[in-house]
């Protein structure tokens, strides 16, 4: 990075961290620390909900995924607006009225302590692991940009984020998210403009659409019913609906956001805001990946985007083999570029395109084969699998983006990652302190005591996330990894909340054993079948509901039949 980039990076990064510390002054007591004293409006909460879900992983993993597979991942988000409506009608009123600190606290009021504790424990495990992946994402960027060791980067990033999260609390987190989210919008627009402006002068918008369409990269709707196909319209609408309901309705990192609202109306509006803007945002982010794919038809891409792995293989006794692959790649890319330029000219002249198109398709296949061979070679050298999908966008940034803009985009990625990370650390801390420490160990302590314990819990989760982050690089695409980890637990959690909200005869034992059975079932499906992970959410929810309904009691639930939480 140039000096200008460093100045932009330092100004923005320092400003965000300073802002978080400034906001920490407003934390008075544990309700301020975890719920901002329930006084925020829908705009700030809505942007924070969006920012918490969309972190640096969204930029890095999603763009890399679109570069490899096209726009199909957008189907994963298509049910989200519908989920928001269901949440507004069914979930939010219950949480808001119950005046709980955590979503799981509600389960004890409805069922019993063991159901609450198990649900909260599952959240802590799934979100704790996912937080590790969130921490790993910006470390990738640093490792590519500055050549830093990923382990060292993870530890430094984790320490800085944990430090200001411990001080900032939810108020700082939400207002920082607002700034981050607005900057992300700017970052998306800048990235798209940069990519378009980097194309040859004679390549127009129509050419971009056409070239992307040759490998069907713009395909965003797949109507097939194959359950082993990762992203189809049906897995998106059904599995995605269940996942969205579970994530926004039972994950404390999101529930905590709309619990900070000043009214039920404000809570609902924050979710409706996301219903309208989340999918378009994802379409634009995925478009960055497809545009990168088109861009690299004109500019030579690296054979392997992970520069550290390239250095590793080049220093090994297999360097000659890799050099041969790179030479072939350079040659094939040159042929593909010529064919692509020929296609652009032919389109402008209204000539026959089939020859150029056939060549491009053939060269695309050859380049993909060379990339596969390279990955296999690197895997043999390293002794572990190789995956560079998360390095594609960062690699473009450092190679092609001009000074100043690069610093801005890197800052946006980092700050977005940190604002997601601090949101999740705050949620993990709240569940740990409210659902376990306060519930079982110290029910009647002072606010100051809980505030101190909450900050210690934030630190502990930061350490846990950092340790897991060190292994995140082996999980393939980051965005998928986050959602796959969550999907093991989410369906079952959603099932138990649906039992609580909608089945008045549901019993505590039915909920608890339903939750256990659902979890075991999803793990079995994950281990022994090829069913795509989005369907795990459906399996978990349905199993919990079946068990819960089978074990329902003879009478409807009433207030007098259930002991209050505390």
């Amino acid at each position: 990075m140039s000096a200008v980039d460093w100045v932009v990076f330092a100004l923005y990064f320092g400003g965000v961290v300073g802002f978080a510390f400034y906001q920490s002054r407003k934390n008075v007591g544990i309700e301020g620390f975890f719920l901002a004293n329930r006084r925020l409006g829908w705009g700030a909460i809505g942007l924070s909900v969006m920012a918490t879900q969309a972190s640096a992983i969204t930029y890095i993993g999603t763009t890399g995924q679109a570069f490899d597979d096209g726009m199909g991942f957008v189907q994963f988000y298509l049910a989200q607006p519908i989920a928001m409506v269901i949440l507004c009608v069914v979930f939010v009123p219950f949480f808001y009225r119950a005046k709980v600190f955590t979503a799981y606290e509600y389960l004890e009021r409805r069922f019993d302590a063991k159901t609450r504790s198990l649900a909260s424990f599952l959240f802590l495990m799934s979100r704790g692991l996912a937080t590790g992946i969130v921490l790993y994402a910006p470390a990738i960027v640093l490792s590519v940009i500055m050549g830093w060791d990923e382990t060292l980067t993870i530890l430094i990033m984790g320490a800085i984020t944990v430090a200001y999260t411990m001080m900032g609390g939810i108020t700082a987190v939400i207002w920082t998210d607002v700034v981050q989210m607005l900057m992300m919008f700017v970052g998306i627009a800048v990235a798209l403009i940069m990519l378009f402006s980097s194309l040859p002068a004679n390549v127009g918008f129509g050419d971009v659409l056409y070239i992307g369409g040759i490998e069907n990269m713009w395909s965003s709707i797949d109507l097939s019913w194959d359950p082993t196909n990762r992203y189809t319209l049906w897995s998106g609408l059904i599995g995605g609906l269940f996942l969205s309901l579970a994530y926004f309705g039972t994950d404390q990192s999101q529930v905590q956001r709309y619990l900070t609202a000043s009214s039920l109306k404000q809570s609902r509006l924050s979710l409706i805001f996301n219903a309208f803007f989340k999918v378009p945002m994802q379409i634009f982010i995925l478009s960055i990946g497809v545009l990168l794919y088109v861009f690299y038809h004109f500019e030579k891409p690296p054979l392997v985007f992970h520069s550290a792995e390239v250095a590793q293989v080049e220093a090994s006794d297999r360097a000659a083999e890799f050099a041969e692959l790179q030479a072939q790649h350079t040659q094939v890319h040159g042929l593909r570029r010529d064919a692509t330029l020929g296609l652009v000219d032919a389109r402008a002249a209204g000539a026959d395109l089939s020859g150029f198109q056939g060549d491009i398709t053939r060269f695309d296949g050859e380049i993909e084969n060379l990339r596969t061979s390279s990955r296999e070679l690197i895997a043999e050298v390293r002794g572990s699998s190789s995956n560079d999908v998360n390095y594609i966008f960062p690699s473009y940034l450092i190679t092609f983006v001009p000074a100043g803009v690069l610093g801005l985009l890197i800052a946006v990625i980092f700050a977005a990652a940190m604002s997601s990370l601090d949101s999740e650390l705050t949620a993990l801390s709240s569940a740990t302190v409210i659902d376990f420490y306060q519930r079982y160990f110290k029910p009647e302590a002072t606010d100051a005591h809980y505030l101190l314990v909450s900050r210690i819990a934030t630190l502990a989760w930061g350490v846990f996330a950092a340790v897991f982050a060190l292994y995140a690089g082996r999980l393939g695409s980051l965005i998928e990894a986050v959602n796959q980890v969550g999907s093991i637990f989410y369906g079952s959690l959603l099932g138990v909340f649906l039992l609580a909200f909608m089945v008045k005869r549901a019993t505590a034992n039915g909920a608890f054993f339903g939750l256990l059975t659902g979890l075991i079932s999803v793990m079995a499906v994950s281990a022994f079948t090829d069913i795509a992970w989005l369907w795990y959410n459906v399996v978990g929810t349905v199993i919990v509901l079946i068990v819960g309904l089978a074990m329902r009691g003879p009478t409807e639930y009433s207030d007098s039949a259930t002991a209050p939480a505390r």
Partner: protein
Amino acid sequence: MKPDKPADPTESVPDDETADVDESLGFFPSWGSLYATVIVYTIGLVIVLYVLTRVLDHSTP
């Protein structure tokens, strides 16, 4: 720190909070119309994306 006695979380939402179901929300005369708009918007998104998927598929010359 917490309310002295938590409300019954399973009973129907009380009047003061259901009252806003019919309230006006800017362009929308009620919450129901806003929710319906979200559903229509989602269906529209799927249709637009499907049309684009078909139109922009140039995998065969």
